[in-house]
């Protein structure tokens, strides 16, 4: 816009706090750019090396190994590899972050300049001292910088002619080789086909229901439904207040932001532990081999974490207009919450809750497998008790239940869309 320099203050920028902050920010930004590229390059090369070693060790040495060389050699190799890759080609990190190494005025860099840059990289980028200057020292001395990638009108090179394309291809091949080697055990695969005939009885049993257990199974199904309902209800009670503390736009300031960060982090951790594992923990807690209560607690904990995330994301997307309008009438913070925010979120919250209830029905059958009660418990007992007819009956019931709830929750959610 062309405002006069130092419009707000007549002091030179390095004597003001804002000026210092800006200067530091620019340096940190430049350092971050180089660091991100280096991290991606070195990380990629490191993963490739580890996978190659792993596959080699598995197939040739018949052992498990991640690095066939001493760790320092590995580290040096990865760092030097990343430096070479970044200096002389369009490396993976540069490509992913949309940058390339080139002179400011747009010509391709010559090999000589690139060699000089490679040496300067070791002197200034690796120890990080180059970034004390603005622009960074190695950029000034080599004339090259990580500029945004320019894509001219020429056709892009095919993947097998680019270094990053070849790298990704190699990574994929080695990963698949290692994965196949480690996970597919040949005797098991042989059994899959050899025993296919023998499992015919098993399949036949699964689809010939035993109606005599219907009443008992129905009773367990009711338990499963109630588990899901109660876990969802209790989770809503906790998750609704927490969601306000986990919404980025509501939690500002020196107290709010840490609360937001901690809460979101904790919820993320809880969410990544499957309900089954939670069920095991709670079963130990209530000292029981089977307990629907432990199952409910497991579903409850996982639902809270999931709902807080869904709710908070919705809160972060609310329309700011009503908040502004209600603040402008002289209303307090609680009134703003009650009249500007809550009306906007009621329906989405109900919709998310129904969705979670749907998931909880499925999960309730699963936590039953470890002793969380309900229909899942019955199923696993039948399977391990080699009562395949009864197991098949229960499975059919589960399919019907899951279908029905799926349909019901989808229809109800349409109304609250």
């Amino acid at each position, binding site marked *: 816009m062309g405002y006069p320099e130092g419009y707000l203050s007549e002091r030179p920028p390095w004597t003001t706090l804002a000026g210092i902050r800006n200067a530091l920010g620019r340096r940190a930004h430049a350092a971050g750019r180089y660091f991100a590229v280096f991290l991606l390059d070195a990380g990629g090369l490191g993963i490739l090396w580890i996978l190659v070693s*792993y596959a080699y060790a598995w197939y040739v040495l018949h052992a498990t190994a991640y690095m066939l060389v001493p760790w320092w050699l590995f580290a040096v190799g990865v760092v030097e590899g990343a430096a070479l890759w970044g200096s002389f080609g369009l490396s993976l990190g540069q490509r992913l972050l949309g940058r390339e190494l080139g002179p400011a005025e747009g010509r391709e860099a010559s090999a000589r300049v690139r060699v000089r840059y490679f040496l300067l990289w070791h002197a200034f980028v690796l120890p990080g001292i180059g970034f004390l200057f603005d622009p960074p020292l190695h950029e000034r001395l080599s004339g090259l910088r990580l500029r945004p990638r320019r894509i001219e009108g020429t056709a892009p090179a095919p993947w097998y002619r680019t270094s990053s394309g070849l790298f990704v291809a190699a990574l994929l091949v080695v990963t698949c080789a290692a994965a196949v080697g480690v996970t597919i055990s040949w005797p098991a695969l042989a059994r899959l086909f050899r025993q296919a005939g023998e499992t015919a009885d098993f399949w036949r049993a699964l689809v010939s229901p035993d109606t005599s257990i219907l009443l008992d199974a129905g009773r367990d199904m009711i338990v499963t439904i109630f588990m899901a309902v109660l876990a969802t209800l209790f989770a809503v009670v906790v998750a609704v207040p927490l969601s306000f503390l986990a919404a980025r736009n509501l939690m500002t300031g020196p107290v709010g932001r840490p609360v937001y960060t901690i809460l979101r982090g904790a919820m993320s951790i809880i969410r990544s532990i499957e309900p089954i594992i939670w069920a095991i923990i709670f079963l130990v807690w209530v000292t029981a081999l089977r307990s629907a*209560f432990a199952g409910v607690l497991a579903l409850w904990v996982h639902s809270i974490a999931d709902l807080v995330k869904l709710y908070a994301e919705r809160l972060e997307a609310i329309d700011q207009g009503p908040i502004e309008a209600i603040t402008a009438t002289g209303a307090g913070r609680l009134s703003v919450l009650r009249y500007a925010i809550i009306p906007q979120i009621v329906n989405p919250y109900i919709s998310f809750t129904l969705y979670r209830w749907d998931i909880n029905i499925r999960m309730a059958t699963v936590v039953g*497998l470890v002793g969380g009660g309900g229909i899942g418990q019955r199923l*696993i007992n039948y399977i391990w008790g080699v009562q395949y007819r009864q197991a098949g009956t229960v499975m059919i019931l589960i399919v019907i239940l899951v279908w029905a709830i799926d349909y019901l929750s989808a229809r109800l959610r349409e109304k609250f869309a």
Partner: protein
Amino acid sequence: MNGGSAAVGSASAGRGVALSRRALSFALDWMTWGYVAYCVMYLLNYYWYTVHVDWWGTLTLPTWGWPVVILATLELAVGCRSFGRSLGQRAIGAEFQDREGGRITIGRRLTRILLWHISVPLFAIGFWRGEDPWHDRVVGVSLRPISPDPERPGRRALATQWGILALFLGALTLWVGWLIIGINFQVLIRRAPQAGRIWGEMLRPDFRYFTTPDPVFSLRSQSYSILDLAVVTVFMALMATILGAAIAFPLSFFGARNVMGFSPVGWAVYGIVRGFFNVFRSIETIIWGSIFAVWVGYGTTLAGILALTVHTIAALGKLYSEQVEGVSPGPLEAVWAVGGSRVQVVRHAVIPQVLPSFWAFTLYRWDINVRMSTVIALVGGGGIGDMLFYYKNQGDWPKVGAVVIVIVAIVWAMDYISGWLRERIA
């Protein structure tokens, strides 16, 4: 409530609602009272049996009880429907209104209940003649979509019949659920010290065997470290996702109406494929795991991979074919117009449109598979779960803590990577 009732309102303004919706709302009302009856019986059973066990024993319904319960719930449903807005009527957004727009007196409502008993058993045919059944026509009322009066405030939900009933049902559910589940906070509190000790041990994780194999833990006479099994777990998810996506991709075109719906054979294939997706999807991965563990051997990673793969095929297949059905028809017509075959249509008009969302769904599925592969070992599917359940059974909580932390790290990292990739694709 808005969309559905508005559409009905405009289509049949001033006319009664369709018979099917009428039947639906009636069924809802009846089911409501049936549920109340179930809960009441459960509570009677629970408290009489446990408290006065010597007096009464268990409370079971005599043979005449069932017809009584059925008829009583029916009566309650009809009564609720005649007086005010019942839950079922609210669900379809309709209420009884006077044909001329006047008030409906209590006498008329009672008459309606009485007439209903004659009409429904004797004159059921009355439903199909005219827009209202006989008993409604005699009383002069009609079930019509609720039209909010812009001049008057609507009553608060909790001051209406359906609101009170909904609240009552909620409370009843909570009460009965509490008893069915056997919620017992005393146990939680009494056991809190022990649980606290376990948590404390888990939060001081033992990473001794992170890279060096644990000699105590062995699978088929071979020791593993946590890292070994973590890698195996990720590979399991990878294999299952790749295999599942590769199989679901071609299948999804057979499960798409706009690709298959041109001939009876096509429709049949469509129905079979979709049915397969739906049935196999509703059986959880872990249940598949228990089946395959029986088949190919307990504790083999192959069982886990197959379980994950089967569920992946069904889940991805459904998502994929919905995408295929959602493609814009323009490019399809263009390829048909130049004389392309069905395969060419799919290749040149459908696949380019659906590929981005296919990638997104596959990555999303990859997330789920990583989560599931961490616990599939429970039923004999292999992976890091083997270690988790082994240490848990040994009561070796510091090691359980270490494994759980590794699981969280894996899930987090894979979540992050797939989220990042999805963003780049979208």
